[in-house]
Structure formats: C-alpha cells, structure tokens
C-alpha cells in the first residue's frame, strides 16, 4: 500500500484550558477524496486548524509524505504543499482577482508553475478570467468561493483541504462547488474535505470519518456510511 499523503495520529488539542480533540486518527491516501463529517462543535474546524498549524498540537503527531510536520509553522507547511481553502473564503478583498491568484502561488514551489497553474485555474473558472482586474471584495459570495478555490490550486497543492466550501452559498452554487471537487478528483488531486452537506459529500468521497465530541465515532467508505442507520438518523433526517 502507498504511504498516506497526510496522516494524523492520536491528536489532542484545544483552546486555552479547554480540550476539544481527544485522540484523533485519520489518513488521507494519495489521489483520494477523504471527508470529515460531524455536527457543529464536533471539532472539525479545530482539527483542520491543527493540521494546518494555526493551532498548536498538545499531543500526537501529524505526518505529511512521511515527514513529521507536527511542530512546523503554517507557512512552512504551505511551502511543502499542504494547502487549505479556509472557511469563509478569506480572500484578500482590497487586492484584484489577479493579485489574489498570484498570492496563492507565493511559495517557492508554487512560483515555478505560476503560469501553467494560472491557465489551469482560469480554465476551471472562466468567470474569473473576465474579472482579473476587479477588486476581489466587490464580487459575490459565489464568485469569491470560486476565487478561493482557484487561489488554492495556484499553490500547486500536494493535498488540498476544503473547510466547509458550500457554507452560505445558494443551492445552485453548492452544486457548482461539488462539480469542481469532482473534476479535481477525476484529475487525481488528493483532497481532504470538511462539509456540512452530507448527501453530496458522501456521494463523492472515497472514505469518510464521522467526528463527535472530539473523537472519531465512525469511519468507512462513502457507500458504507450512506447505508449506515446512525448516519441516516443523525444527518439525513431519516
């Protein structure tokens, strides 16, 4: 079996005195789409913050392509190709669309492929191409999400992490975001997805973990979890 792209072992962390995660184990194999599900407050965002390094880890280990990155700073992890598209998009509002995309390719690794990645990102999102000189903050929420994804692709990711990409989007745009994720999956991009939209993500995902109260309570392939009575009860309203 291939070495997993990203591996989290027995991870514990929290904010101040409050422990949120209680020993998380998960793996993201290369070329796969891995999903993390869970209700609000289950610790999904906290887990991503620990994986990207924004939040220090108390205990446990994060490895990326076999390298221990548990104590690396977020920008250092980004330079290795661990790229997150953050919740709430976090685009740079006073910069143009073009500048936002360039910022995506800030790391040395990514700068080398700036031109090709720019062409690729703009071919995925032709609407951005018409707006390269527009201030990013003046675009609609849906366009900003497209920009956030495109900016993530500019980083030449070895793993692309999505934090709630469909949050706050109209249904039509949610479908569009998932179509993009599917396209990326077909091209073999390794992805880790945190989503509220259980139906759509389980339909696409290779493997999923269900988080509750800071622990992994269930895991399995997309189909397995979709069949599961517990998941149905908790999320699918059945």
């Amino acid at each position, binding site marked *: 079996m291939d070495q997993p792209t990203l591996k989290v072992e027995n991870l514990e962390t929290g904010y101040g005195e409050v422990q949120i995660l209680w020993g998380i184990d998960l793996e993201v194999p290369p070329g796969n789409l891995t999903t993390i599900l869970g209700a609000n407050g289950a610790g999904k965002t906290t887990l991503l913050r620990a994986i990207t390094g924004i939040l220090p880890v108390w205990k446990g280990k994060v490895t990326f392509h076999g390298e221990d990155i548990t104590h690396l*700073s*977020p920008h250092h992890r*980004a330079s290795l190709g661990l*790229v997150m598209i953050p919740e709430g998009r*976090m685009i*740079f509002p*006073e910069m143009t669309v073009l*500048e936002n995309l360039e*910022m995506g390719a800030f790391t040395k690794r990514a700068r080398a492929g700036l031109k090709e990645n720019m062409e690729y990102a703009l071919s995925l999102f032709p609407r951005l191409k018409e707006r390269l000189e527009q201030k990013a903050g003046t675009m609609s929420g849906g366009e900003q999400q497209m920009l956030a994804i495109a900016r993530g692709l500019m980083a030449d990711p070895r793993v692309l992490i999505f934090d709630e990409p469909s949050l706050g989007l109209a249904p039509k745009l949610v479908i569009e975001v998932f179509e993009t994720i599917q396209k990326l999956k077909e091209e073999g991009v390794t992805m880790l997805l945190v989503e509220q939209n259980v139906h759509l993500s389980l339909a696409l995902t290779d493997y999923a973990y269900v988080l509750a109260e800071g622990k992994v309570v269930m895991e399995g392939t997309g189909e397995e979890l979709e069949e599961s009575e517990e998941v149905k009860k908790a999320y699918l309203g059945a």
Partner: protein
Amino acid sequence: MLSAWLGAVLSGILLGLLYGLAAIGLNLIWGVMNVINLSHGAFIALGMFSSYFMAKYLHLSPFIGVFLVLAMGVILGMVTYFVSLHKIISAPELSTLLATYSVSLVIIGLGTFIFTTNPRAIDIALGSVSVGGTVLPTTRILTGIFSVIFTLWLYYFLYKTWSGKAIRAVSMNRDAAELMGVNTTMALALAFGIGVALAMTAGALAATIFPFTILSGGGYELKSFVICVLGGLGSPLGALLGGLILGLIENLVTLKIATSYVPFLEFAILVFILIVKPTGLLARR
C-alpha cells in the same frame, strides 16, 4: 504681492511633500499592523541626527546619506519590532501603544543624555533657485523631489514585489496570508522596518532645511497624525496628498496670521475632520 503668494504656494508644496513622506511611515504601520507608532517622532529625530553625523564626520552629502539612513532604518525598525512588539502584536491596541511609547521614551531619553538639547544644523549650502520672482533654497526643492521618489518607491514595493504584496496580504487577513505560505512574522517586522525607515528618511531630509534637536520629531509626529486623518489609512499617495494640503494651508495662512497659530489651526482641522468624516477625508473605506 503676487510673488508672495506664489512663493507661499511653492514652498507649501515642497514642504507638504516632506510632511507627506513623514506621515507615510506612520500610515503604513497603522494600516498593516494596527499599531499606533508613538515612537514615530523619535525615529524622525534619529534620522535627523544620522544625517547630521554623516555630513559632519563622513563628509557625505545628506542627499546621498539619506539612502544609507533608509537602509539603517529598515534594520533598526525590524530589531525594534522583535524587541518591543513581537510578543504583544496580537494583544489589544493599548499594549502596542504603550510599547511604542516606551521605545520613544528610551530614544528621547538617551538622545537627550548623549546629544543634549542644543539645536544643531547641517552645514549645507547649495544656493537657491529663482522661480517667477520668488527665491527658493535648492535644499527645499531637492527635499520635495526626494520625498516624491521615496513615496513612489514604496508604491512600487507594495504593489509590484512579492514582499510588498505579502505585506498587503497580511494587512487584509493575517491567517489567510500565513496559509498561502507567507511568513507573517517576518512580513510584520519588515512593514515596521520600512515604516521606521521612511520616518528616519523624512527626518534626514528635514534636517537639511531646519535646525533641530532630539525633540524635533514631536512636531512632525503630530502633523503626521493630522495627515493620516486627512489622507485616510492604507494609501501612500493619500498620505502624500494629505501632506500637500497641510503644507499649503500652513504656508498660505502664515501670510496673514502669526506662525504660532499654525498648530492650533492644524488641530482644529483634525477635530473638524474627525467630527465630519471620521474615516478620513480621502479614505476609500
């Protein structure tokens, strides 16, 4: 009479450009880091002394030495960032305000001890230029030109270089910049370094026009606050424009009223703008 007005307008513009440059450093640090740099005036005074000593002991023209002052300022500012601000950069604004105030006290205190408060002046004679019947000292003209050059340089740096874009990204969203691979600690340190360097540069240029002491930065610091409010935060050109307005007002009203009323007028303007348009006269946001 007409030439008096012309003279006032011309020297108002030249002086205004210098005021603008003095304000840009404060503007940059405020806009990027949300830090109100109360050591701004002290660094302006340090710039004056740097230029003075370079002229006196190295026989370096202040208009060449100013580039050295710029480089020294970046380093000095970055060191100051790590010593006094790094640990508290995420703390509430009062902490960083007090930290920069302490830096100011240290510089002014040591400066008073070492240099005393006797006024000094750079011995520079470059003659004067006659424009439409008014005579302008060459140093003033050069000071205005250099102020524009440094402002354009900052503009180029912020909008055309990777480091500059990183600083702008950090000013908009620090977490997102970090996730894009920007070392945000170094970006903040560099922003503070450049802010301090521009303050010192303005001081170095001002020292070619006026006599000064270690306390002379205070006046420029106060003017810089007025200019930041006039020009709004975040735009180097806005600051330059704010400086021009202030320089013109100063030079035109002193044709009719005594110079000692100028600070009163400046702060009347500050209070007026804060009441009418608190985001700044030319601010976009």
